[in-house]
């Protein structure tokens, strides 16, 4: 019985260590605009979409728009793909990515549609 605990325990420790290491290195914290702009780490930000600012550059295949936070601060977000399905109607967006040269480069956009349980679905993957 002892050996089972030793082998099982070693396995668990090894994988748990891997899990914790990956968790720590990949965790993208939720931050405010100022912090997002100040760092170059992967973070996620949430903001209200400024409707007038939304434009899609078809040649560069890039969606660019501004978001504002609750304090009214403004930030430009760039997304290297077409707008997600329900982007046009979304009020808020969660952008996952990093800041580079004053612009937030999003690799994922999560659309907030407060209407429904399981349904409004989109992923950038």
């Amino acid at each position, binding site marked *: 019985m002892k050996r089972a605990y030793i082998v099982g325990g070693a396995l668990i420790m090894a994988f748990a260590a891997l899990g914790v290491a990956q968790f720590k290195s990949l965790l993208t914290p939720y931050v405010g605009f100022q912090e997002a702009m100040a760092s170059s780490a992967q973070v996620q930000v949430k903001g209200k979409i400024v409707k007038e600012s939304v434009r899609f550059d078809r040649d560069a295949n890039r969606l660019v728009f501004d978001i504002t936070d609750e304090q009214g601060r403004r930030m430009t977000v760039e997304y290297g793909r077409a707008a997600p399905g329900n982007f*046009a109607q979304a009020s808020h967006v969660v952008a996952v990515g990093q800041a580079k040269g004053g612009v937030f480069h999003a690799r994922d956009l999560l659309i907030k549609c407060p209407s429904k349980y399981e*349904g409004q679905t989109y992923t950038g993957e």
Partner: protein
Amino acid sequence: MTAGHVLIIAALGGSLASLVLFALVARGREGLRDHARSAFTATSILVAAASALLWWLMLSDRFDVRYVHDYSSSAQPPVFKISGFWGGQEGSWLLWLLFISLAGLALMRRAAHAEGAAMAFWSSVQAFFLIILIQRSPFAPTPVPVEDGMGLNPLLQNYWMAIHPPVIFLGFTLLSVPAAFAFAALVTGDFSRWSRLAHGWALGGWTVLGVGLLLGGVWAYETLGWGGWWGWDPVENSSLVPWLVGGALLHGLMLEKRRAAWRKLNLFLAYAAFVLIIYATFLTRSGVLGDFSVHSFASLGNHHWLAAFLTGYTLLGIGLVALRTRGIEQGEGYDSISSKEFLVFLGIVLFGLAAVLVAIGMSSPLLSAALAGRAGNVPVEYYYRVTTPVALAMMALVGMSPLVAWSRSRRPSRAGKQLLAALGISLALGIAVGVLFWVRSGPEIGARVAVGWFALSILPPNLYTLIDTLRRQGPLASGGHAAHVGLAILFLGMLASSHNNGAEPDRLALTQGKPQEHLGMRWTFSGVRDGEGSSRKQTLELRVERPDGRVLTVSPSLEEVRDGSEMRRPGIRSSLAGDLYVAPVELGVENPPPHAHLERGGKADLGPYRVEFLGFSGMEQKPDGSVQAGARLRVRERDGTASQEILAAIRLGQGQPRYLPGRIPGTEDQIVLTQMSVESGGISVLLDGPKWRENAGLQAVLEVTFKPLAWVLWLGAGIIALGGALSTVRRVREARLPEERGGSEALVRQIEEIEALTGPEAAARMV
């Protein structure tokens, strides 16, 4: 108070009564058993009646009921009126409760000596669901009178989506039953038969939940256009974690039945599966993950109840373990580490590890908020990195499984040992080659090579054993082997079909009538077919000529749905070689007509015209609640001098804006006001007319990927499900065996010993 409310409240009374009565039965008041059963049966009938009522309300278009208004409409096809039952939270709670009640009726008849305690536990679960349904009733009235319903979300109006949630809820229900037996065993202190009673339920729940996950994957692939079949979204993960724990449990129960070993571990796993199902429900329905998931989780304000339920059952489990764990007798888990018993134990550890690692990722917002003080989330890479090593280790065990003997069976033959050595060498080579590729081409390629190598190495021994078992003992004994073969095939399919997932998909912009070469095929966009009636569906018709001359038609579609969001359904053409997966991005024009943005007093060139924005013409409220606003424009031909003032307007209300263009006198052209902002004082205009329309050129932008051998993935998953189903049938039958044959444990043991022999024997004959 409507009939629906009355049914739910009466059912709560019934379930509390059956809870108390069954608890008394468990304490020895045998005379109450019939009353307890009657109370539970009556409760279940009330739940069934409430469900029937909701279906009837859906089918008879009773839009005065809010739930019907929200998830149905008079134009909705009857099949989606039926599936609209679980289109929203309240209805899906009711459906789940219906399954719990039906499963309870079966459990009541099958629970043997454990009936009192197990049914008391089950009644408590039923009561909890009823409390949730009183909190958020599907029978609540619509606050204001309405003509018609809003209709079920079109994403859910789909064959796969109609059957996916019921299958998941059925899986959750069945996989919770072992917890009732674990509870009963802990309360009564009688552990002798709990594993035999629970095994069939565990297998059944694991299989059904697995099929549910698979259906969700098919839905994501075919309807949502995720491009893949698994997105590691919290909604998916939250069902995956109980499934992994269920996988650990059914292996553990197998060991416990063989030699009364790992009893404490199994009791823990059975109870953990149940608690994790509630935890999953809490995460996905309380709204706590709202900012972290691509699904939207609107909180219905019942998360306090969910949290209370979760905490209550967790504390109950901890309390029982604290009180009872010393009294649990269990045998030795294995005799030697080269026995199959030990191998299976390691498998259980890996299942548990996979569950913990996925659960950590899925809970990352809560964990990081609690530990680091602020919420964060992990990306999809986390899951790939932590699960790949677990998957490799698990495959190694699955590969060894048919080559290693149970410890009390005959000594393994020499040939068996040689095969095991050969497998070991192959797996070691796989690791070595994987590391080589890791160094040369990066970790992802390395991992893929190793996973593929492992899957190919473990397939032959398992396939051989499966065929051999099928021939000698029939299908019922082959379930486990089939699942192992399916696992290897599933991994191969996953690798093949996702081989280009990392890269950005190729984007193809096709202008109507202008063929293009892409991926070695000739693509033609022949036109757009509009949906019938009020549907806003636009189907893109694509003709694809393959090099061998065969012509395929692919029809992805774009649809604007009720709330204005866009649904993009991929076009998929499957063949033996793989799936051609065409996801629509947008439908636009190649040469957009002249357009401009103007500030008040500003001028711009618009094609042959010069346009000046003079000012807004004032806003007007229309009787239907919409607002009409116009812009005054001065227009002259650029090479002319005569200018004229025209008015273009836009009407904004519910739904799409209505454009009221201004015709330029003496021409066929008109100016459309497409956007305006009173705040910034700016407008957007474009030039419309026959000339501009002809020249525009309809253009479809598509993302095209080819997914090689996609069918292999579904085949592997299907074989696992079939294996699970076969084992379920076997274990359900077996659970009845001891009673019918006067409790002959020895006979069951004997049968299993004989089966165990076939593993190494089969291996010996392979040489």
